[in-house]
């Protein structure tokens, strides 16, 4: 008889076990998706604690409604949908977000700004901070559907088909949202490119 260790089981098998009441199976799904879930939430909130709370809330909601989940769909698409909706709700409640660069982000932005010719470290840090603030504001100014499509494609690397499933829309619509988001970002961040 073939016996698989739970960690080796696929999502569908873990979901089926969790639907039969095995909480440990769901905990394995949490372990599998917690980092991705957290990063998506962080992209929307830009706050470590809020991202943790939102992603955990998404797991809890998925667990509560798991019996209603249809195994013909993929678990992570269904779960991402719950998470993205929670993040959008959060954004509606909170409004605009204060974009403060974290240390590693400032460094990353500084690397990007090397082309501007900044050499001294304090100048570079200030410039990196400024770039990051502009990037944040430009992202924040995008309509929610464009921002969702952009974050899921650009930050999370989901395919157009996966994004269409998460957003419950047509692939053509996702492409249109992505197109508008990129064009708007390029326009708003023109000075960063110079």
């Amino acid at each position, binding site marked *: 008889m073939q016996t698989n260790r739970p960690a080796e089981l696929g999502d569908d098998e873990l979901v089926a076990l969790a639907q039969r009441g095995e909480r440990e199976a769901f905990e394995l799904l949490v372990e599998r998706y*917690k980092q991705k879930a957290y990063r998506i939430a*962080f992209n929307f909130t830009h706050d470590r604690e809020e991202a943790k709370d939102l992603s955990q809330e998404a797991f809890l909601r998925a*667990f509560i409604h798991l019996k209603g989940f249809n195994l013909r769909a993929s678990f992570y698409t269904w779960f991402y949908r719950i998470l993205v909706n929670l993040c959008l709700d959060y954004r509606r409640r909170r409004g605009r977000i204060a974009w403060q660069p974290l240390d590693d982000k400032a460094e990353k932005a500084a690397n*990007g700004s090397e*082309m501007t010719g900044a050499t001294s470290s304090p100048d570079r840090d200030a410039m990196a901070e400024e*770039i990051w603030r502009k990037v944040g504001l430009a992202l924040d100014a995008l309509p929610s559907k464009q921002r969702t499509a952009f974050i899921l494609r650009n*930050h999370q690397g989901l395919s157009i088909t996966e994004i269409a499933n998460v957003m419950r829309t047509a692939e053509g619509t996702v492409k249109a949202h992505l*197109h508008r988001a*990129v064009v708007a970002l390029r326009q708003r961040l023109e000075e960063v490119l*110079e």
Partner: protein
Amino acid sequence: MKRQTVCEDWEKDLILYYYGDCSVEEQERVETHLKGCPSCSSFLTDLRTLLPLTVESEEPPQAFWESYSREMRKKLGEVKQSGAWWKGFPGFLHPWPVPAMATALILLLAVTLTFSKGWWRSQNLPPEEEVLLEILPMAENLEFFRAMDFLDSMDFLEALEGQRIRSETNKQVL
């Protein structure tokens, strides 16, 4: 400095090309266009510079993930415990019991009202008053019947008058 304007028809394809979301044929088509179009090549360079800058590389420490998993296990445990009492409740709200219960309630109400009507009356009123109560609505209609009788009499008199005039006219003719 104003940036070069990208060919409008190619803008969407170039974005999909950047993300690798186009077919091999489309990819070849875009590459052929790029060879002869400096503005579209510049647009693609902009995307390659700008879009990676927008990605937030948030990497919390290992301790964060350990605490995350611990909290999650605790919350899941609480959901299961607190979920025990209400888990059966949604089943009660399935589509079929609600109309069935409403129908049963209406039937019960109808039966109760039908059978209790006579019972309450016989319990509270003496038989002579009960007869009075039945006659009362008829008495209220008495005025109406009287008016009807009066109208009938008027018709009868008019008919007699008409007959009289006709016979007098016939006599005169003869």
